[in-house]
Each structure stands twice: as structure tokens, then as C-alpha cells.
């Protein structure tokens, strides 16, 4: 579903943010992308979702090139950034309706799915309020709902659990599992290694823009914890 081939991003003249990154996420995968701050996670994610240009390599989503067929890629992708700066001047329901308009979701379908997920995340009551009045967690929940209602084939999340309360975190994990069972691929970055270990079936570790380890979770960690493996790999690369 997602194939990153030799992706390289250089900021300015010499700041290499991503250096020949290669990885593949299949349908049904929950793929964890881990690394230190500034390792290149967000750069890779922003390139995948078509928010950022890049010079070298290519990224394919559902067989379409992000460079050449950006629109086709975006039709099947949903993105939730780490800090969801949403349209503060809209109410929650207006924002969701706007997203539904873009994806041409029928009135009955949008009403049903918005109701379902807004109830699950317990923000139905607040949907009539301006987004500017929402807490970080509520904005995060709204961004998640806006991603789910479009039924994406690929869901890309940047630090999705930051700001979520424990109940919403658990709910999101369950939804991620449910979506994968239905054939969706999930690619997300996180700093929380325990979450990644429990949730992901595949993982990649990025350091200074380079993938230094990756593969199936059980193959990569064996009997150890992901935290131990992460520290070993990162130290070894030093």
C-alpha cells in the first residue's frame, strides 16, 4: 500500500533530513516509525502525505506516485499531524462536514459515521462549538474522526497519542486494529516504545535521516523489549 523508495530530503544546501529511506507498508500492517527528535520521522511523513516536496526518490501509495499522481494518492490517504491546527473559526461539525464534502460522502453516510465516532470519542456535545474552544485532546479527536470518516486505504499519523486521554488512546488503538482488519494500512510515528511494541506488526528505526533497523516486530526484537533493541541499535550506530 505504501512504498518509499530512496526518499531523500535535503533542507537548504546540506541539511540531510532523510537519506535514501526505503520501506514498505502492506495492507493490514500497523507500521511504527520510531526515532529521536529530529531523526527525520515528520519529514518522511509530510512527504508521504504530499504536504512537502522532495527532490530524490519516490513514494508510491496504492501504486500511484506521490510526485506524479499526488491527487490519486491523497484520495486514499488520511493524515493526522502531531499538532492538529484545524480551522479554529469553524465548529467541529462544520469542519467534519467540510471534509465530507471534499470526499463527496453522502449525507446519510456522513451523518451515521460522524455520529458513531463522535459518540465513541465523547465529543458529540461539543461539535456545535468553535474549534478554537477545544482542548488539544479534543482537536486531536476531531482530526481522528475526520480521518476515519473518509475510509482511507492508508492512514498516516504523526505522534497520534500525544494529548489523548487514556480512554481515547485505547479507543484509537482499537480503531486502528479494526481498520487494519478491513485492509487499511497504518503508518505512524511515536516516541512511546511500549505502545509501538504492543500495537505494531512492523517497525522501522530512523536515525539522522537513515533507516538503521526495520522489519517484522518479532524478528527485530526477539525476546527483548523494543526499548532495549532501540537503545542497542541507536548506540551501535554511534
Amino acid at each position, binding site marked *: 500500500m505504501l512504498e518509499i523508495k530512496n526518499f531523500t530530503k535535503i533542507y537548504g544546501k546540506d541539511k540531510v533530513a532523510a537519506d535514501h529511506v526505503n520501506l514498505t507498508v502492506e495492507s493490514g500492517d500497523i507500521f511504527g516509525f520510531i526515532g529521536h527528535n529530529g531523526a527525520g520521522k515528520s519529514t518522511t511523513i509530510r512527504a508521504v502525505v504530499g504536504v512537502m516536496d522532495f527532490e530524490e526518490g519516490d513514494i508510491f501509495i496504492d501504486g500511484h506516485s506521490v510526485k506524479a499522481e499526488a491527487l490519486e494518492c*491523497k484520495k486514499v490517504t488520511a493524515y493526522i499531524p502531531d499538532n492538529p491546527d484545524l480551522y479554529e473559526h469553524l465548529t467541529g461539525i462544520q469542519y467534519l462536514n467540510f471534509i465530507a*464534502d471534499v470526499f463527496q460522502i453522502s449525507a446519510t453516510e456522513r451523518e451515521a459515521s460522524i455520529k458513531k465516532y463522535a459518540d465513541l470519542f465523547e465529543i458529540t456535545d461539543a461539535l456545535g462549538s468553535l474549534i478554537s474552544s477545544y482542548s488539544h485532546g479534543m482537536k486531536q479527536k476531531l482530526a481522528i474522526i475526520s480521518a476515519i470518516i473518509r475510509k482511507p486505504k492508508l492512514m498516516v499519523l504523526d505522534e497520534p497519542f500525544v494529548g489523548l486521554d487514556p480512554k481515547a488512546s485505547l479507543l484509537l488503538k482499537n480503531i486502528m486494529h479494526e481498520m487494519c482488519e478491513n485492509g487499511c494500512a497504518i503508518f505512524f510515528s511515536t516516541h512511546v516504545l511500549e505502545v509501538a511494541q504492543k500495537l505494531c506488526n512492523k517497525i522501522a528505526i530512523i536515525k539522522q535521516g537513515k533507516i538503521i533497523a526495520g522489519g517484522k516486530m518479532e524478528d527485530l526484537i526477539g525476546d527483548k523489549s523494543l526499548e532495549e533493541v532501540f537503545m542497542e541499535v541507536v548506540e551501535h550506530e554511534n
Partner: protein
Amino acid sequence: MKTRLLLKTLLVSTSEINILKYETDRKKRNTVIGGLVGKIVLYLFLMAYLVATAYGYGIMGFASQLPLFNVIIISVMVFIFAIMKVNGYLFAFQDYDMIMSLPFSVKTIVSSKFLYMYVKDLPWMMSITLALMAGYGIFEKPFFTTYILWILLSLVLPVLPLIAATILGTLFAAVGSRFKFKKAIQSILIFAFIILCFFSRFFIENLFKNNSVEGVLSNTVSALDSIKSSYPPAAWFCDAILNNDIWSIVLLVLVSFVLFEITFLVISRFYRQVNSRLMANSNTKKYTMTHLKTRRVELSIAICEFKRFLHSTTYLTNMGFGVVMIAFLSVAILFVDVDHALSAMTGGAPFAKEMLLPAIPLFIYFFVGMVSTCCSTPSLEGKSNWILQSLPLENKTIYRGKMLFNMLLYTPVGIMGCICFGIKCGGNLLCVLTFILCELALCAFSTTWGMICGVKFKKLDWTNEIEVVKQGSALTIYLFPNLFGTMLLIVGAVILGQMMSPIFINLILTAVFAALSLLCYHKVVKM
């Protein structure tokens, strides 16, 4: 000291020079360079226009009044522009929490924000003052110290009108903050105040007019003298320039400084309180799912833009000013005897309402087309830019949606103006129809040309929307050619109207602007 530190940081963080120094992305650098060059060219145009105007006054024997013109133009323009932006600068700005959490006194924060607003206005204020000074120099040939004094005192001149605008802006914010629809109340108060100023200016002007052109000239001198007595800083500036009066210099500087200190001492007392109220969000009652409407994507984007427009006092007052003025004038003209009004305005000069006919769509465009939401809207996406960028939308779809909003905002009132002004100035049905066509073409041009400027000079990393609504390169590049072009066209249309039918003139204008709009639209969809 701390005010200087904060002011310097504010200026550096929003300065284009900083991008030029540290940005390594050539595309971004080129955009900034393009914007700066464009601004410099436009300031030079403004200066050339004002030098020519000053020269004209000199020939008419008004050279000694140029210092007073300098005071009037700077004070009035600073005041009117400031009243529309002071709210965005001083209250509920994006980095409010961050700045207020730092160890600065409230007075330091407010005064540094005020000084930031002052520094940002300096380029065009200096363009005006230098041009008028040059005109004065040509005719009066003063000693070189007069030039130095002129420049130094011109730096002090904007302080008092800025303080006046700050006091009013603070009052509007304080009043608005007590209501549920805070921003709407603030916008209404600002609009009401500006309309009041506009009509009182008209009323005061009429007091000095009589029925002879000679009388107008002689009465202008007495009118100017009365300005000096009613606004003492004007007299101080003139005395300082014309008579090198030390007392006047001291008074102008001292009064500006003392009022600055007192104003910010007072405002700082309740600044936090007003901001807290402004930034407090009231949640509406429990939402229950109802039937949701489906819309076309372009319309959905336009509605989104409309909500943004209503939600921001800065955006609404600056972009909605022309709409409100024309709506107001269109209704007002229905109750006014146009011949009588024209006679009063021109001091009895032989000017019939029919002479205005060919220029009516341009006159209306002068109000509604001088700004375009399309100049600011690509930049206003700011940190939310990821939403549209990550959605499966082509750029042209996004731009169409944003252009649709601009058209929906300006055309209805433009058409209303054409009908009301057209009928009252004696236009027949066909004439009014050509006005409407011409207005549509003008609005389409404003929309598409605005979109080109907005996209070309997009700035997403703003911290205060004033930066892109009022001061952005996009708006500057859009505004000045449009302003001078329209003024020339108005004069041209009135002159041509003596030789040919207003219908014919407006059909030509329609064809020209429709063609220009098409060209711009083609450019937009390829951007």
C-alpha cells in the same frame, strides 16, 4: 530597555530581511526579494505621485501650506488605517500566551506592540513625507536644517494619531469583550466609527464651500488655518518648519511622549482583563446531530472562507470596509439630491451628475475592489495549511473556492451600487445594465488578479494575521497599481464621457477587464 528588546524580537521574527539572511531555500528567497522590490517600486510610484501633487499645490500658490498637508495626510491616513488594525496588533494575538508568560511588564508588552505597529507603518509614511518635503523644497528653497527638522518631526507626527486609534481600539475591544459575539461587536463599532468619520468629514468640508471657484481657493486657506487651531500638533509642526520655532518642536515631542506614557500606563491596567475576556471561548449548548447538507467542494471552501471572514475582526474590517461603505452610500444616495450634493462638493463648479455616469462602475470599484480577500486567503491558511495540502484537491479547485467567496462578497453590493447610483445619476435601463456588466468584469479582475498576488506572495509563517491582511507583499502589490489605475480610469471616463456615450465607454471597459480577468484566471489555474 526591555521594550527595545521585545520590539527588536518582534521585528526580527516577522522581518523579510531575516529570511533573506538565513533562508537557504532559493525559491523562498526569490519570493521575498520579489516582494521587497515590488514594494520599493510602489513606494517610488507613491512618491512620484505625491511630488507631482505637491508641485501642483506649489503652482497654485500653496507651497507654504505643504507642511500642513504633510500633517493632515499622515495623521488622517495613520489614524484611519490604525483604527482597522490596532485590534489585531494589541489584542488576542497568536503569541499572547507566550509573551505574557515572559518577565515583561504589561506596559512593556503593550508599548512594544504599539511601536511595532508604528515601525511597520514607517516606509509608506516616509514615502509621503519625503515626497511632500521635496515639493516644498522646490518652491520654498529652505535652509538644509529645515529638511532635517522635517524628517525628524515627521517621525514624531504619527505618534498622536496612533495613540488616538489605540485608545479607540482599546475601547472597542473592551466593549466587545463583554458580549457573546465579541468579534462581531468590535467590527460593528469600528465600521460605525469610520462611517461617522467619513460623513462628518463631508459635513465639515461643506462648511467651507460656497458657490464660487475663487471662493473655494480662498476658503481653503481659512479651512487650513482652522485645522491648525483645532489640531495643535499641526500648528506646532508648521511653526517648527516655517519659523524654526524651538518651542513648537519641544511641544510636539513632549506632548507625544507624555501622551504615549500616560496612554500605556492606563491601558496596561486593564489590558490583561480585556484579553482574558476576548480569548475566553464560550461553548454553545449541547450539540445534537441533525441533517447535514452536502455541497460542491468549491462552495464548501467558499463557506469555510466566509466563516473565517466572520470570525476575524481584522479580516472583516479590512476586507469588508468597501462593502459596508458602498452599501451605505447606495442607500444614502437614494435620499439625496445628487445635483445639490455635487454643487456643494465642487463649490458650485459646472459639474452635472450626468458627467459622472461613465465613471459609476469605477467609482464603486474604487471602494469594493481596492482590497481582495484573494490576496490574503492563501496566506491565512497559516498553520492549517496542511489540511488543504493533504486533501485530494487540485490547487485550482482550492483557488476557485476562494475566488468564489470573493465574488460572492463583492459583486452583490457592487451591483446594488450600480443600480442605485445609475438611477440617481439619470442613467436609463440599458445604461444601468452596462454598469452591472462592467462591475462584474471589474470584480472578476479584482478576484483573479488578487489570487495571483495572494498565491505568488503567500506567507504562511505569520504570527499575527495583520501581517497578511494589512501589510503583506501580496496586498501591497495588488493595491497600489489598482488604486492609481482606477483613479486614472475614473478621470479618463469622465473626460471621455464628454465625447461619447457612457454605455459605449462601459462596454469598452467591460471588454478590457473581462479579457484581463480571463488572462489572470488562466494564470491562476496553472499555479
